[in-house]
């Protein structure tokens, strides 16, 4: 073995590998070098807050220093003032209420429909064979493109808004549900069959709870989609609503108000995410 070998052979590979076939070496006692660690996720609670604070500071700074026109990028202080104004005159609550109702109804309808179809596709091969291509064909259809047709089909009232959000939520829910059912361990189903459990009981006691984690993960995505679509939905003759508010602020070129509305949407996203996390922790404590 060449003598260019390092003196430390412990857990450390030799820097220059051997080329020849000399005899082995002997090394003096030395500690084993640590080479593990990393690739795990540790929690840093403060980091998120720090990041938000830094982001706001930079944004405010850019505006204060006149690097960006207040029309193009109003400073967070202006956005904050606009938001405070919305709180003060009660319009925030009015708009929020209208949007929340639409999101809630649209999301629930889309989710129920999606879970129903998803369950059918998860359980029946024929439904699956029919459904998969239909879903991949209909999923990528942009809801905003269909707004004129939605008005014709569902009118200009709440139904068309529910439909916009509902259809947006429906397809991802279908996909999440049938994938979740695919991931229910087959051995549990075979076990239930071997104990003679009836089909309905298997569905209720095994397939449904087993698919729950996947379905809840889908909720995370569909909640974001519902928030995104509330703006599209409120393009159709809405008087109140965060989406309508944002659109109107845009029409009046009030960028600070616009961003205040966007901020509200973002906060709603964070709030829904938190609720889902709590729900997951409760419902999926068995994992």
């Amino acid at each position, binding site marked *: 073995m060449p003598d260019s070998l390092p003196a430390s052979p412990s857990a450390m590979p030799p820097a220059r590998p051997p080329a020849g076939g000399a005899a082995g070496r002997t090394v003096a006692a030395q500690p084993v070098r640590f080479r593990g660690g990393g690739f795990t996720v540790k929690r840093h609670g403060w980091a998120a807050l720090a990041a938000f604070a830094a982001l706001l500071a930079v944004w405010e700074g850019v505006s204060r220093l006149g690097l960006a026109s207040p029309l193009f990028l109003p400073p967070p202080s202006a956005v904050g003032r606009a938001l405070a104004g919305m709180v003060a005159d009660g319009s925030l609550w009015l708009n929020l209420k209208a949007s929340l109702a639409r999101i809630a109804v649209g999301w629930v309808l889309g989710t129920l429909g999606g879970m129903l179809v998803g369950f059918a596709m998860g359980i029946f091969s024929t439904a699956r064979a029919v459904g998969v291509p239909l879903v991949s064909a209909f999923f990528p259809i942009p809801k905003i493109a269909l707004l004129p047709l939605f008005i014709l089909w569902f009118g200009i009232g709440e139904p068309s808004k529910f439909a916009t959000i509902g259809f947006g939520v429906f397809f991802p829910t279908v996909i999440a549900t049938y994938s979740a059912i695919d991931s229910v361990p087959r*051995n*549990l189903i*075979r*076990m*239930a*069959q*071997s*104990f*003679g*459990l*009836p089909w309905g*009981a298997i569905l209720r*006691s*095994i397939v449904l*709870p*087993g698919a*729950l984690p996947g379905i809840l993960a889908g909720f995370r995505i569909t909640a974001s989609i519902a928030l995104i679509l509330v703006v599209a939905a409120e393009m159709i003759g809405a008087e109140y609503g965060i989406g309508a508010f944002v659109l109107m602020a845009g029409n009046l070129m009030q960028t600070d108000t616009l961003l205040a509305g966007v901020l509200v949407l973002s906060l709603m996203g964070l709030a829904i995410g938190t609720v889902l996390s709590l729900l997951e922790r409760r419902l999926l*404590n*068995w*994992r």
Partner: protein
Amino acid sequence: MRLLVSELTHRYEDLTVLDGIDLTLAEGEILAVIGPSGCGKSTLLGIAGGIVAPTAGSVRVEGAVPDGCLNPITFIFQDFALLPWRTVEDNIALVLEHHRLSAAERRERTETGLRRMGLWDFRKALPKQLSGGMRQRVGIARALAVRPAMLLLDEPLSALDAQTRELLMDDFLGLWRREKTTALYVTHNLDEALRLADRVCVLSRRPGRIRELVTIEEPRERRQEPSAQAHLAEVRERLWHLMKAEAQMADREIARA
């Protein structure tokens, strides 16, 4: 209950896994089935339990069914097959739920199972909180709750470490001493077969055919005694001889992708 397997053949699409199996289990008998990986042992058990529909041949049962039996042919699984979202007692309750039992009867059956398997203190625990051995004890308690006439065990101990395996074998022996349930016991482990079975059925490599049925003369109760060791070593030698070449070849076979 007796099990009568005749002319049994099974194919998955174009892969024949069992070929002409003829087998009879006597009332209260424990038959161990050994054979190389992939030879169709689990399939055989599945057919016997009505979970897999055989391609040809028949499996029939006859004989005594114990009092209060809800599911005459009952499985115990290698991977325990516990619902991770149910507590220990609810996992046992699962198999009683769709039967019209009185609440008292249901409670009584669950409690008996829990106590017999030393699970009483863990009845509110979730499967994830249990060790492997405890989980299989839940599986056994669940099987006992339906008062089976015949047990089908598919490598019930092979997911456990060697120490827990030893402990659970004692549990099984105790169980059979009391219940005299007929059992079909699939295993890879010669030591398990030698400790628990009345007869050992050696299957050939896929397609599984019966190579030999070996009877262990020594009664189960006396197999731990020194005097029994000679006979057991001899049976072991014979079984290992039957197995080794097949096992080696099966191990080197590339699985179907």
